[in-house]
């Protein structure tokens, strides 16, 4: 009885090996970064492998910070985006306007400026002295607030792509508004938004480099410092390789998710 459904489901789950290689290379590059945390480092004068080992171990703390900034921003901005999306769709005009204003400011001004505001704001407004740890938190807050605005609009497009008939069918069957959203609309929305969300996540990976504006020394900032110190541009390319490989993994994972959601057609 279940066989035809399964045949339909397995359609197109034919994965290429490339992303697995990307993951392997990425993990391999992380080894020196991990080893350097244990006090192990390569040599700037030796062969290519040794040099790469040296460069990555120099970048290591920045790599982890970039990854942390990326992960925390996603964890906070995705749910926050849903909240902003709800406010944007509110029946109350005032709430809707406030959400619209928030989105327009977040999308309409440079992220770098927003980071500066979050970083220096507490000092200028409340005279709270700046601490050295705060720049990490400020970066996470700034990125999350900014990305929430973009995610809110992506969610909205996903929600509005769900046909009106779905709401009517749920209404007649007695689903409440929240039940309709959780059971009927949300799962269909998720499917609609995977491609634009993938776009946003990939942009976020690269945007983490903007955190240098508030003296947050992530990977790219470190690579610049290393390049300046050694008068060698190569560290920047090593950093570029990291972004590229990480984004390959992101698109691979999101591609899997998209296929998983393809179990039904509209």
């Amino acid at each position, binding site marked *: *009885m*279940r066989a*035809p*459904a399964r045949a*339909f489901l397995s359609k197109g789950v034919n994965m290429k090996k490339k992303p697995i290689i990307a993951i392997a290379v990425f993990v391999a590059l992380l080894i020196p970064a991990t080893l350097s945390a244990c006090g192990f480092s390569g040599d700037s004068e030796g062969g290519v492998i040794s040099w790469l080992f040296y460069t990555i171990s120099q970048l290591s703390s920045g790599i982890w910070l970039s990854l942390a900034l990326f992960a925390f921003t996603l964890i906070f901005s995705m749910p926050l985006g849903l909240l902003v999306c709800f406010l944007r769709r509110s029946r109350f005009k005032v709430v809707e306007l406030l959400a619209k204003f928030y989105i327009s400011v977040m999308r309409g001004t440079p992220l770098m400026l927003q980071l500066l505001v979050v970083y220096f704001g507490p000092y200028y407004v409340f005279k709270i002295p700046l601490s050295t740890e705060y720049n990490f938190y400020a970066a996470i807050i700034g990125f999350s607030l900014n990305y929430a605005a973009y995610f809110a609009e992506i969610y909205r497009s996903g929600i509005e792509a769900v*046909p009106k*008939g*779905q709401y*009517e*069918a749920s*209404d*007649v*069957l*007695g*689903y*409440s508004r929240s*039940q309709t959203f959780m*059971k*009927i609309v949300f*799962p*269909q929305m998720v*499917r609609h938004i995977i491609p634009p969300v993938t776009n946003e996540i990939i942009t976020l990976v690269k945007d983490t480099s903007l955190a240098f504006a508030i003296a947050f020394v992530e990977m790219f900032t470190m690579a610049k410092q290393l390049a300046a110190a050694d008068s060698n541009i190569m560290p920047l390319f090593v950093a570029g390789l990291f972004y590229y490989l990480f984004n390959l993994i992101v698109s691979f994972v999101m591609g899997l998710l998209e296929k998983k959601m393809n*179990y*039904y*057609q*509209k």
Partner: protein
Amino acid sequence: MKLLEINNIKKTFDDLEVLKDISISVSEGEVVSILGPSGSGKSTLLRCATLLETMDAGTLKYGGETVCEDVDGKSVYVSKSKIKKIKNYFGLVFQNFNLFPHYTVIKNICDAPIHIQKRDKKEVEAEAMSLLEQMGISDKVDYYPCQLSGGQQQRVAIARALAMNPKILFFDEPTSALDPELTSEILKVLRYLASKKMTMVIVTHEIDFARNVSDRVIFMDDGYIVEQGKPEDVIDNPENDRVRAFLNKLK
């Protein structure tokens, strides 16, 4: 017993008066067909009856229980919790099915009875299986709607509505999205339900079907009921010119 009573309903969209003054009542076991040209207000009447639209004026009662009263020419609805209960009273089958695409056939049918009506899962599933058998699609239990033909989807939609055990079932042009072959599939199901004494109100353009199956035919035009009565009277010997002109074009 009157299952449905609507009195003096009025409904206006912006400046367009869609329902002008309509009263209709349906008794238990009765099959009522509503005919009429596009834009005559048939669908709006059904949508008001199923609470998808709120009516501007008039009263609505299900099985004697008031859903909305007329206070100084304006409809006033009862509390939300009462409306939630009354929604168990009726079901609606849509023109374009509106199945949930991310649920399998069985989940489409069982989800609301289990989670909204809080009925026993095993009992609901057994009932759903028997409904699917009656609909002739018991082999499609684990399919997704997109894997089914339009006729099969509509039969699932009918099973979904029936699984809620409604006392009265509304159909909004249930065959208009289907080709003639699939249409006959659905009409067969409707005939079967009529033989089981299911109370039904059907908006349709299938004149032959309306004549053969319904106990009463209502002809609507321009927001009014222009003629109603036994199908052989209304369809074969219409008194009203507008009805005669409409039916002649269909022949």
